[in-house]
């Protein structure tokens, strides 16, 4: 993790998905995630259809599968947690390959794995096809408080700077032979954190003064045109719409 970290999340392009206004994509992804979460976990093929929908979006946005897979690493801690549930869950148990597994736990693990994976892929697609700043502007159009959006924007702008400072401190520590092995080394790390806080805070003060001298009055001008044609809402609505159709369809069958 270092310089330019978050830029690699975005894959510039000029496809139908890239051109959609950010607020449409946000609503579409959130709606899709909501439909996925609301789907009963016994409907295996519904989840399969959701995956197909996401694959279609990925194909339309020309996001390669390898990129998606690499970005799905964030999910790993919860995959481990989900895999542990069948062992610690209670209730009826089955024996599979010499392991005693809880049936309800297996269901829960499947539920978490399927829904979390679909959610992660949808979020990754959103981040891959939309510039970070535009996502926040889209969120502002969706009535996220402007102050929150501004804070997030300042955070995004200076994230690399702060992470760079942290990396330099780590390099300095390690070039002096420091390795954090046990609790006695915590104070060293904590002093770096303290120094990092002071540097961040003082940089914040400088940034504020610099902004003031450039005419900052507490709000940022929005220069992008973020208006949406109703046709674009229709296009963006296809993903959650199709997912909802799958959900209602399977409900009708079940």
């Amino acid at each position, binding site marked *: *993790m270092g310089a330019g970290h978050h830029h690699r999340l975005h894959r510039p392009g000029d496809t139908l998905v890239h051109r959609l206004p950010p607020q449409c994509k946000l609503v579409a*992804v*959130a709606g899709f995630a909501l439909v996925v*979460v*609301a789907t*009963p*976990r016994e409907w295996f093929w519904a989840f399969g259809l959701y995956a197909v929908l996401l694959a279609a979006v990925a194909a339309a946005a020309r996001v390669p599968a390898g990129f998606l897979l690499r*970005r*799905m690493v*964030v*999910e790993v801690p919860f995959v481990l947690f989900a895999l542990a549930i069948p062992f*610690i*869950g*209670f209730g*009826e148990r089955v024996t599979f390959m010499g392991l005693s597994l809880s*049936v309800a*736990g297996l*269901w*829960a*693990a499947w539920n*978490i*794995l*399927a*829904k*979390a994976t679909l*959610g*992660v892929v949808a*979020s990754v697609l959103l*981040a891959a096809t939309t510039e*970070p700043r535009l996502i926040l502007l889209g969120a502002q159009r969706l009535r996220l*408080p402007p*102050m*929150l959006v501004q*804070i*997030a924007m*300042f*955070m*995004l702008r*200076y*994230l690399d*700077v*702060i*992470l760079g*400072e*942290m990396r330099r401190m780590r390099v300095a520590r390690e070039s002096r032979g420091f390795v*954090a*092995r*046990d609790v006695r080394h915590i*104070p060293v790390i*904590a002093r770096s*954190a*303290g*120094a990092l*806080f*002071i540097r*961040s*805070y003082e940089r*914040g003060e400088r940034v*504020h003064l610099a902004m003031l001298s450039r005419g900052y009055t507490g709000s940022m001008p929005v220069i992008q045109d973020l208006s949406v044609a109703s046709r674009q809402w229709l296009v963006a609505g296809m993903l959650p719409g199709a997912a909802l159709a799958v959900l209602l369809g399977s409900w009708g069958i*079940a």
Partner: protein
Amino acid sequence: MHVPDGFFNAAVSLSAGVVAAAGVAVCLRGARRELDDRTAPMAGLVAAFVFAVQMLNFPVAAGTSGHLLGGALAAILVGPYTAVLCVAVVLLVQGFFFADGGLTALGVNITLMGVVAVLVGWGVFRLITRSVRGRGAVVAASFVAALVSVPATALAFTLLFWIGGTAPIEIGTVAAAMGGVHLLIGIGEGLITAVTVSTVLAIRPDLVYGARELAAPLVLRGASGDVTVTSESPAPPAPVAARRPGWFLPAGIAVAALLAGVVSFYASSSPDGLERVAEDKGFSGQAADHSLGEQPLADYGDVGGIPVGVAGLIGVGVTLAVGGGLFFTVRRRDEGSGRGEDSDRKASV
């Protein structure tokens, strides 16, 4: 620990979202008092700091390591309102851009790691520093506050999981396991927080929000040997400001959690197959010890599926309506008291 999609059912996710929105709304107003017009750049940089500090891994015990939550640390350094905002923004950015933590679980994440961790941490910190004064007390209070905030967050997670989680795990075991592990992590968090706070206290004591009362008055010594002592110490608005959300937010969380609990088992018991599996396989006798599971199942399983989804929707609607009401009450109260405070300030000026 970022909760992904699918961990909690829709009702809990939505009501946690409402709680998170109410909390953030209160903090947006409060942060203006803590940082005045510098709010956006300062909070943005502090959020970047929290993000960076969460990547610091520290060794806990032999072989295992944890990473900082940062809620208590941020609260002590920049004040509780700004801290909630910063943690919320960090979670927002992680959810939007890093796919870390699901979009539908954003409310749960902000409620747990933002609101609960910061409130508990700040509450404990204030409790100690109000009774004991001095720099040592601030450092010790930072340790205790951070130490308590981590298991408290873990227990809040367990409580939510019990109300609307999607895995069949006994509440007692989870609470014990989560509490135990996070107590260990909490010790590490407490140590780091305490040393960090004492470092900042040593270099820039004016930057530690939680130690504002310790600030010595400014002494000016003129060339002719005259000494002027300005008694102008920045009056910390914290005690008054912190108390109101201090009781209001936990109460709000309790109300929402109760609602979600009552509502969510209607929403979840039948469409998600846990209890059905339980009944089919004949171990529903065990449901005695989680008595929530048994009755609605018996009712709805027989009626035949239709009311389940409807009940779920109604439940979500009711939760949203009540949560929204809560949100607006918070807003109105906040506006009212904000105006009162402004006029107070004017009067004192």
